[in-house]
């Protein structure tokens, strides 16, 4: 086990807080367990609740490199693990032909293109590996990933085995556009990130956008909480709360009133039909007590 700069859940929470991330008790415990038990942490939740942020903040806090593997449909081993630099190999063949020598060692390290998973195997515990939006990749890729996560070792036939002395910290995120396989889930610790409570959200806005005054931050957080309870197709996340507060503060609005809310609604609602709907019901979003100030 690698030495971690904290020994209790509370110390970890304090560390994350220093790096401007305010997780709740459940998430902190999950992160603590993932790091202590050397297990990947699978984070699911609606868009904008800060899943990816966990990896970034952890890398910062632990002073490790962040290695990010962004998943997309059709991703395969050559984009995730390693690939040979075929154009350079071709050139090498031509060059050795011209020199009259046989082409040798075409599959040596100098022709190897390192991709995130290989980089993570090499870096080992010196890295935080973020596997982002795994649900976008297809089933085949998930099976492949399972192998890599089990061993943190890669065997390249021409070069040999590259193994991590100690596994990196692994954060996997999923937006749940499809269910991940149980085999993968069994290997991971799991946490569903929910929208934060009102108090926590106000705190997050204050920490992330320090120039936003406390009353405005509170009004925005309250309004967003109401938006989440409305019949909108895309519920705003914490990122949107911060954006909205920033926009309002930038425009110099001391309070969230109907006018200011309508003018800046694009920062928080990003679907045309939702937009129209919320505009019609703007009075329900901006409560009277907030409007008067």
């Amino acid at each position: 086990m690698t030495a971690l700069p904290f020994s209790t859940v509370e110390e970890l929470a304090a560390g994350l807080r220093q790096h401007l991330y305010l997780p709740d008790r459940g998430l902190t415990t999950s992160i603590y367990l993932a790091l202590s038990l050397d297990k990947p942490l699978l984070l699911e939740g609606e868009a904008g609740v800060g899943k990816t942020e966990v990896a970034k903040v952890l890398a910062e806090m632990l002073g490790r490199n962040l290695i990010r593997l962004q998943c997309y449909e059709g991703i395969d081993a050559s984009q995730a693990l390693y690939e040979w630099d075929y154009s350079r190999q071709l050139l090498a063949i031509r060059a050795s032909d011209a020199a009259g020598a046989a082409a040798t060692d075409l599959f040596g390290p100098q022709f190897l293109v390192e991709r995130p998973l290989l980089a993570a195997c090499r870096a080992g515990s010196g890295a935080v590996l973020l596997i982002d939006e795994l649900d976008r990749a297809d089933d085949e890729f998930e099976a492949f990933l399972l192998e890599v996560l089990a061993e943190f070792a890669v065997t390249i036939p021409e070069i040999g085995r590259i193994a991590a002395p100690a596994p990196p910290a692994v954060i996997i995120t999923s937006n749940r556009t499809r269910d991940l396989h149980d085999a993968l889930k069994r290997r991971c610790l799991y946490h569903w990130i929910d929208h934060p409570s009102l108090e926590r959200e106000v705190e997050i806005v204050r920490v992330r956008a320090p120039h936003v005054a406390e009353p405005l931050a509170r009004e925005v957080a309250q309004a967003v909480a109401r938006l989440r309870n409305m019949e909108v197709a895309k519920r705003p996340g914490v990122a949107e709360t911060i954006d909205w507060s920033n926009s309002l503060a930038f425009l110099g609005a001391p309070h969230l009133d109907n006018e200011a809310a309508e003018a800046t609604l694009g920062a928080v609602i990003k679907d045309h039909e939702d937009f129209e709907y919320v505009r019609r019901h703007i009075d329900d979003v901006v409560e009277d007590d907030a409007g008067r100030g």
Partner: protein
Amino acid sequence: MPAGDDYAHLVGFGRELRARGLPVGTGRILNFCSATRVLAPVDRRSLYWAGRATLISRPEDAELFDNAFGAYFGRSELDETMSSLFDWLDRTHRPADETTIEGTDAGAVAGFAEADEAAGDANIRMVASGTEMLRDKSFDTLTEEERNHAALLIRHLKLSVPLRTARRLRPSVKARRFDLPRTLRSSLRTQGEPFRRAYRDRRRKVRPLVLVLDVSGSMSAYSRALMQFAFAAISAGQKVEVFCFGTHLTRVTRALSTRDPDAALQEVAATVQDWDGGTRIGESLRGLLDEYGQHVALRRAVVVLCSDGLDRGDPDVLAAQMARLGRLAWRVIWVNPLKGSPLYQPLARGMAAALPHIDVFLPGHNVASLEALGKVLGQ
């Protein structure tokens, strides 16, 4: 460090979850024990979160977990931390308020039923239960025996499976894209001379099929037939999701794994409590889109809606939700058994509101029309 007895207590909790139907294997229980070890000294709260992180991995299971945790370790101050968690799930399961039916289809329904009864009588006089006759007989007039026979026919329907082009590339003999890596590898055998050239092509993937079935009283005979249809689709190699609705939506995909459509429908009947509550198609669709709009099951899928279109909800809601569905799905097929009657016209307000957003409008009231549905799927 917990003593042996404590571990037995922890393992017991894992087994308790398993007894309650959660897939908790020994590996998960081991993780749970290690987790409590690193968290030591363990208070109730960290024990709870350790279990949450290690023993379950789906937000839907959280409620069951909480109940089991409360029952096994005793209930206390935990409750408030958990309640917020299910808001996103609960949103779609709000009880709907009652309104009266507003449709003009009553006449069409009556006419259809009479016409069918007459046809049924005539058929019984001619042959007992010939396959040809059965193919054209409406599902709601079938006897138990005929129903079983029809079920067999449906399950052996030949379906064309809808395909789409995937992003992933596969080796191919058809020349579409040059495959440099494989060409180079094979050219190494020939001193770098690329005698054999390799190509790749886009792979084809099966589009998912989503059935959204109206299970309110008058529709159950047809919905049962479409459940059979779902089994036919599964055996044709298709991914199938099934949702049932009356006043609200229930996902019943899991019931399909029982391999027995009747048992599956009975299970559904047990979970769906609103058989006589009337149909609220718009609200149910909103539930579907809110919860699964981001799910691949719905995106670019073939969606088959089976309902008579007699909606008790607001037609504007239905129109808006149908528009959303139309944008999300590859193709929307509405199966309306009333359409089997030559007298039928889609005049009910709900049906009229939905019509502009439907790609294919089919009757689906007998085996022959389900056969037609099977052909339409792959187009």
